[in-house]
């Protein structure tokens, strides 16, 4: 059930988040000033290519950044409580209980040595005040809810006895075990075949609707975003370049990178001799260009793009970080 936490408080608020990796040759900024909110029950898609910082943003929120990466700026607020600076044991209680996680490869989330029933009941009992029998009942109900046939028998099997699609269902059951308010799903369908992908997405959507769970869906697959998300954030080189209702972003992309990205996706029924092509590649973290990070690949770049970094600004129903949308034309003399 969706319980509004505080009248106007979003479920999750990320403000000016910065994730850095110290290296011998200086600090690399992988996530650079990312801000967004997720409302209760909302699905926010985060899309971008490898190295855009989308997975790191998700990992920062659940407190699972791989060292030496660390949060060096901004804050993460869950239901009014700041969680980015919590000690390890407190974050552990939030993880699983209030934020669930689903990763790309179901095998990394499941322990191969334990039956899935044991893993589920352990998770349930860690977070909910239930006895062994009640926890097992709940585990069975969860397995049925995620569509595992013959759950009574399957509950005592090991992960290797499940197919890829079935394993991902088990992982979803695990993520939902303690009824978290937010689920971070990082490429949940990427390892699956298309027909299984559709099953998993339909399942995730149904469960979130029934439980009022909000989802941050991290993926490179625009198709998955288009049919699942309410809003979408497009990331490039560690920053959000465009964010807004999914329909707007998909159909009327505004940022030149989003436009290029959408045009480069082959579609059944779209007859083009050549796909739209964004030349070049996303910059490496140690070579992010001055000004707008996209400017060397942008056909529409002009002087200011090479010197000044654009901030997200509201353009109609969306927000875009691009100097093309500066109104009135910004004067070049403004300090960055």
């Amino acid at each position, binding site marked *: 059930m969706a319980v509004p936490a505080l009248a106007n408080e979003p479920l999750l608020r990320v403000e000016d988040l910065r994730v850095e990796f110290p290296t011998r040759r200086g600090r690399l900024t992988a996530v650079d000033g990312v801000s967004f909110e997720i409302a209760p029950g909302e699905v926010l898609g985060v899309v971008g290519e490898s190295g855009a910082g989308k997975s790191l943003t998700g990992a920062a929120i659940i407190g699972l950044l791989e060292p030496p990466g660390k949060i060096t700026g901004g804050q993460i607020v869950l239901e009014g409580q700041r969680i980015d600076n919590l000690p390890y044991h407190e974050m552990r209680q939030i993880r699983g209980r209030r934020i669930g996680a689903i990763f790309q490869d179901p095998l990394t989330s499941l322990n191969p040595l334990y039956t899935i029933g044991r893993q589920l009941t352990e998770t349930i009992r860690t977070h909910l005040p239930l006895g062994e029998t009640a926890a097992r009942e709940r585990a069975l109900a969860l397995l049925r809810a995620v569509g595992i046939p013959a759950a009574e028998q399957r509950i005592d099997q090991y992960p290797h006895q499940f197919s890829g699609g079935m394993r991902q269902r088990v992982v979803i059951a695990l993520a939902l075990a303690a009824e978290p308010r937010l689920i971070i799903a990082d490429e949940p369908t990427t390892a699956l075949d298309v027909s299984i*992908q559709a099953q998993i997405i339909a399942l995730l959507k149904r469960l979130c609707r029934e439980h009022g769970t909000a989802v941050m869906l991290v993926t490179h697959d625009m*198709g998955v975003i288009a049919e699942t998300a309410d809003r979408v954030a497009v990331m490039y080189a560690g920053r959000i370049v465009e964010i807004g209702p999914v329909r707007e972003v998909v159909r009327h992309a505004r940022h030149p990178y989003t436009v290029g990205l959408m045009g480069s*996706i082959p579609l059944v029924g779209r007859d083009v001799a050549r796909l739209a092509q964004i030349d070049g590649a996303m910059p490496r973290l140690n070579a992010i260009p001055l000004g707008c990070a996209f400017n060397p690949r942008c056909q529409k770049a002009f002087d200011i793009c090479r010197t000044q970094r654009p901030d997200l600004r509201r353009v109609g129903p969306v927000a875009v970080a691009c100097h093309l949308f500066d109104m009135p034309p910004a004067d070049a003399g403004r300090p960055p």
Partner: protein
Amino acid sequence: MNRAEAPLIEVDRLVRHFDVSPPLLNRLFEGGRRRILKAVDGVSFAIRRGETFSLVGESGCGKSTVARLMVGLYRPTGGDIRFEGMEIGGREGSANRKLVQRRMQMIFQDPYASLNPRWRVRDIVAEPIRAREGRLPAAVLAERVGGLLRQVGLASADGEKYPHEFSGGQRQRISIARALAGKPEFLVADEPTSALDVSVQAQILNLMRDLQRQFGLTYLFISHNLAVVYHVSDRVGVMYLGQLVEVAAVKALFGRPRHPYTRLLLDALPDLEMSGRGRTPVAGEVPSPIDPPSGCTFHPRCPHADARCRGERPRFHVHGEAMVACHAVEEGRI
């Protein structure tokens, strides 16, 4: 026969089985039986010169095994592969294969695993030239390699670098340059863009199309991504559990899919146009190819299956513009 009309490649009832039995001693003492994985089980198709023929299907359907059989990385268990009418598949074909081997090349899925990390790019690209033409003066070789690198959108100077200095998309360009170095007529591309980001995928697909135009290449394109297949193909074959279930021209296949499995795949496509169509999730999963279902192997997932489908394996028949292996389509039930 007219050279342009005759198929460049013909595949006739191609079969490849893998023995996945437990070791002999285990079988003797534990009573395990032989287990045969029928990765490719009677596949027939033809590819015309200059066209792109794609095989599409889910993991484990045998599409990559077909690709490897084509270039000779596996030997067929049965059936024929003919290149310009010359048998190159079976035991008799091995002498012939040597003659045509250099006229075909392959591009692999993983650009991180398919390039030798200890070789400089110029040596990687020069290898097929050396194999084909023997020793050449260094200057001539360097000129050829530089030309190939420029052709795939890299710089001649990139030849001095090692593969790890390149991104995934650039590595796939190197793979393509290496493939072109052997001056092939037939290129087998096994999921060439699956490991790449979409914007890089677009670059590689555009490059492959340009090269096809320029050199009149014939492609066998293997992919699980229907949208990519729609974009690149002239004709498409849909595979399921080691067998082709439908072959048709790309427009016919996507416009009017006949086989229930093809329909299932198309229904499962994500809706990027946001028409509100919503994809239909399909029940069930691909069964194990070690112990495939009887009759039509798709029958446990098929909404149109009847007793005949459970008992009798459907044969390929011409249906309108398509070739379909389905009893229900043949009987006009769907």
